[in-house]
Every structure is written in structure tokens, then in C-alpha cells.
């Protein structure tokens, strides 16, 4: 029950208000450009995690290969701008389409294999893509591609931040529309009871391919933005740790609500920035967080908020009942 409430609170007005707040007001309060870049990172990670949650929370599949889509977006940006000197708008058209196609391939194998194997399968394929980009210096090799010319307009952190917010907002609107559409509802029904969905006549394989393709499409856009932020693409973006980051972000924020992952992104970027400066054992902290979340709070912070909200709104009802019982 708290999950549905969490979804309602964070999926409807709560989420949008929060979003507008973060997007527009916060950067005006921060002075340091480094802090604004952190906010941009929150936006990008939030977009990536929300796209990831399409597969995880709404699709019910554990994908461990999303780094492939994210990294491909970044690499296509870098390769197009550095090696071929193509304009930026071309990147924004080609990268998501390529990402979506690769996502469809992943989805195809995910559809064929048993539900249990999707995690490992996507991981295996993503690692293969990582190995390709890691091994061939022509497409960057170990170091990746740097000094990507993104256009002078974007050198200012504030400008690039609002650009990111604009693109992310469009993507969030589209994703929200998809999730609330019949497609999204079918997705959730397949997640909840695959066999029953089949009895009703739904072809779960097609939906698996579709959800992977859509999720990959938006993950690639996030990758493009990330490459623009760092002006570089490197193999670590394709490594499983990047997917793990998205996974933890989604888990932390709440995988059963739409804006949960964005909330998780806000917390993760701040926490990550804090911890990376203090200790080199950030993966240890992340691992402990994952274990605690899985054992204690699988719905993430959004579920926790939902629980508090439910308690507050039913507390008066409980008091009423108690008084009736006593009488």
C-alpha cells in the first residue's frame, strides 16, 4: 500500500513540484560553478536512473547492461564530434536511435532467455561492448576520447545546466507519458504476473524488447549529456560499475515510483561527492547500502515517504477506531 502511495505522491504533483524546485531555483542559490556541475550530474543521473527504472521497476527485469547504452551515447558523441566533426544536433538524433537499436538487441535476448537470466545476460553483453571499446585505440582504447568540442555556448556551467534541464524535462515528460499509457500498464501487468498476462493474450516477448529499446533510447541521451559535461568518453562508462550506480540510485530513491530515481540521484551525487573525497572505499559503502536497502527498505526512500504519508493520513482514522473499540 505504501508503494502505491509513494507512486502517487512522487509520481504526481509532489514529483513535479520537486522537479521544478530543483531545476530552476537551486542553481540560483549556488555560487560555485563546481556545485552547478554537480546539479547537472544529478539531472543526468536522474534521467539515466529513471530510464533504467522503466526496465527495473515497471518491467520487473534486472538489467545489468545499461552501462552499454549510456556509454554508447557518450562514445557516439565523442566520436561524432572529434573524429568526424559533425554538428551537435546530429548526435542527438543518431545516438538515441543507435542506443535504442542496441537496446532492442539486448531485449531480444532477454525475451528469449528465462526471466532469471536477464541480469547476467545483459551484463555479459555489456561487458563485451566494454571490451571492444577498451581494446581498440581507434575508438579510444584505454584512455577514451577527450577534448570533445561541444560548442562555446556550453562552456558556462549555468548555460549547460539549463540546457540539460530542458532536455531532461522533455525526456521526463515523455517517460511519464509512456508509463501512464496502456503500454506502461501492460508492462506492469507482465511484471506482476507474466503467465496471467499471457492468458489475456499479451505477447510478453514483444513488450520486453520494447521496454529495453525505450529505456536504452533515453539512457543514451543521458550518456550524450554526460559526455558533454565531461567533454570526454572513456571505457569506465561502459563498465558494469556504471550500471551498478544507476541500480543503486534507483533502489535508493525508490523503484516503485516514477520520480524515485531522480530523488535517488540527488542523494547519490551528494553522497558520492562526499565519500569519494573522504575514503577510497566508496564501493564498500555502496555495497552495504544495497544490502541494507534490499533487506530493510526495498521500495527505497519513496516507500519510506509513502509509509510516513500513510501513517499521517490514517492516524486520525486509527484514533477513531480505537475510541469505537473502547466504547
Amino acid at each position, binding site marked *: 500500500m505504501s508503494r502505491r502511495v509513494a507512486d502517487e505522491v512522487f509520481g504526481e504533483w509532489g514529483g513535479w513540484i520537486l522537479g521544478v524546485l530543483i531545476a530552476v531555483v537551486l542553481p540560483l542559490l549556488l555560487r560555485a560553478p563546481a556545485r552547478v556541475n554537480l546539479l547537472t550530474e544529478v539531472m543526468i543521473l536522474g534521467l539515466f536512473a529513471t530510464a533504467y527504472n522503466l526496465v*527495473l521497476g515497471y518491467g*520487473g527485469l*534486472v538489467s*545489468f547492461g545499461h552501462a552499454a547504452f549510456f556509454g554508447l551515447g557518450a562514445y557516439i558523441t565523442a566520436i561524432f564530434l572529434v573524429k568526424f566533426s559533425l554538428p551537435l544536433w546530429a548526435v542527438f538524433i543518431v545516438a538515441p536511435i543507435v542506443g535504442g537499436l542496441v537496446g532492442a538487441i539486448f531485449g531480444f*535476448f532477454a525475451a*528469449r*532467455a*528465462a*526471466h*532469471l*537470466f536477464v*541480469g*547476467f*545476460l545483459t*551484463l*555479459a*553483453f555489456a*561487458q*563485451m561492448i566494454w*571490451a*571492444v571499446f577498451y*581494446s*581498440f585505440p581507434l575508438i579510444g582504447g584505454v584512455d577514451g576520447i577527450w577534448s570533445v568540442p561541444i560548442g562555446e555556448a556550453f562552456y558556462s556551467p549555468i548555460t549547460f545546466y539549463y540546457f540539460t534541464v530542458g532536455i531532461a524535462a522533455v525526456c521526463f515528460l515523455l517517460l511519464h507519458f509512456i508509463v501512464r499509457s496502456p503500454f506502461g500498464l501492460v508492462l506492469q501487468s507482465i511484471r506482476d504476473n*507474466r503467465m496471467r498476462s499471457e492468458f489475456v493474450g499479451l505477447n510478453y516477448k514483444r513488450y520486453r524488447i520494447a521496454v529495453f529499446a525505450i529505456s536504452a533510447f533515453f539512457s543514451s541521451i543521458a550518456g550524450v549529456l554526460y559526455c558533454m559535461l565531461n567533454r570526454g568518453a572513456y571505457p569506465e562508462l561502459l563498465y*558494469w560499475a556504471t550500471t*551498478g550506480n544507476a*541500480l543503486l540510485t534507483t*533502489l535508493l530513491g525508490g523503484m516503485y515510483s516514477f520520480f524515485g530515481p531522480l530523488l535517488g540521484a540527488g542523494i547519490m551525487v551528494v553522497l558520492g561527492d562526499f565519500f569519494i573525497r573522504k575514503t577510497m*572505499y566508496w*564501493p*564498500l559503502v*555502496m*555495497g*552495504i*547500502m*544495497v*544490502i541494507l*536497502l*534490499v*533487506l530493510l527498505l*526495498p521500495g527505497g526512500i519513496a516507500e519510506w515517504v509513502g509509509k510516513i504519508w500513510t501513517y499521517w493520513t490514517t492516524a486520525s482514522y486509527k484514533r477513531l477506531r480505537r475510541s469505537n473499540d473502547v466504547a
Partner: protein
Amino acid sequence: MSWGVLLNQTFAGISEAAILFLLAGGFTLIFGTLHVLNFAHGSFYVLGSYTAYTVVALISRITGNFVIALVVAPIVIALFGALIEMTLFRYIYRREFLYQFLLTFGLVLVLGDLVRLIWGTTQYSMARPGFLSGRISILGQPVPVYILFSIGMAGLVGIVLWLVLIKSRFGKLVRAIQQDREMASCLAIHVPSICTGVFAISCWLAGLGGAIAVGSQTIMPGLEVEYSILSFIIVAVGGMGSLGGAAIGALVIGLTDSFGVLFLPRLTLFFIYVVLAVVLLTRPYGLLGRQIIE
């Protein structure tokens, strides 16, 4: 391709398959009995490597220190695995698969940093003990003794494991739990302790694989996920839950890897993924696998 190269690569492939069999055998045991995909399996393998290296380094004055390490390290890993099973895994058996996978992923992160905490990030390599180094001539080709040793160890362990599963009472209980866990517990079989035992055996196998691997490879942190992926691929190719499947899968992957080096040295993994894709498209449950009811 000369006969010598062919023989060389075959032996290299089989010895690699030997270690991979130990790795994948544990993985498939856990999956068949506990129905859990242990993402952290590669971490136990890596821990086994490091533990074996440390044991060898600690008792370097004693002769036969490598043999002692081969005995001690897997047992340490097995006990550690049993501890983790009793504290963490017990809570997630009833939960959905999603949470199981996520928990094991958290474990991967924790164990990976544990390795870095204890042993740092330096790479270690160990010289082979005297009686296991050198080469023997087989069919006119010099074959490293260590390769034969690896193959022999894995074969011996495989046979013993198979005998235990088929002939012993413990094996019978394990097979009962594999077939129907609830029914087994209704028959007064103490399922939790047997599951802990199976998990411990699986970690023992992974630790042994890692310990044997120390003699032929450099060990460094950060490889645990690659080994977990490999064990998954082997089991997916050979058949989930089947020890024979693990053996076949290990052979296929080991030989593919060693012969792939001849054709595409930079991307040996590529051929492995091709094999995986082909098997998944034609037989989604592996070569020896049975249909899994979700």
C-alpha cells in the same frame, strides 16, 4: 597450424576448462539447490586466490606449503561462505528473484572492497612449487606439469563430487531438495542446514579453483565480476543445475578461449559470447538443462 600448436592449445584449453569447471560447478550447485544466482560467486573465487597466496607466503619456509595452501584456503573460503549464507542469504530465499540478485550484487561490491582493504591493489604472482614446475613430453610435445596437475585435480574433485551426489546420503538429501524443497522439509529433512552445506561446498569449489589458478596467473583485484560472468556463461551453455552441464560448458568455453587466441588475440571473449548467443538461440536452457518454471 602445426600438430604441436594444436596439441598445445588443446591442453591449455582443457586445463583452463578444469579451473572453470571448479568455478562453474559451485555456481550450478547453488542454483540447482537454492535457486539463487550467486552474482558474488566470482568474489569467492578471487578470495580463494588471495587466501592461497597469503598462506603460501606465510608458511614459505615449510616444504609443501603449496599443498597446505590448497587444503587450507578452500576450507577458509567455505567457512566464510557458510557464514554469509547463514547471515544474509537466509533472509532472501523467500523473496523475489529481483531482491536475491540485488543482494548478491551488494555482496560483490562489499567483497571486492574487502579484497582491496586486506591485500591492497598490488598484483601478486606466485612461483610454482618445484615438483609441479617443468614440462613432461606427451606425444612429442612438452606439456607443463602444472597443466596436468590442474586437469587431474579438477577431474578428481569432479568424480568425488559426482559420487557424493549420487551415492551418499547427503547427496540424496541434496537431490531431494533440488527437486522439491517444501516436500523435503515436510519429510523432516533439515533444509536450512543442508542448504548451508551446499553453499559451503560451492564456495569450497570456487576457492579451490582460485587457489589452483594462483599457480598459473597473476592475481589482482577487480576480476570477480568477470569470473561471475564466466561461470554464468558456462552454466548457461552447459545447462543450469547440472554438474555434467558445468563440465561440458567448461570444456566448450575453455577450448573456445584457447583456440580463439589463435584467431582473434585481442578479443578472445568475442568467440565465447558467440557460443553463448548461439546456444541461447537454439537451446535456451543450455545443452543439458531442463525447463525452469519461473
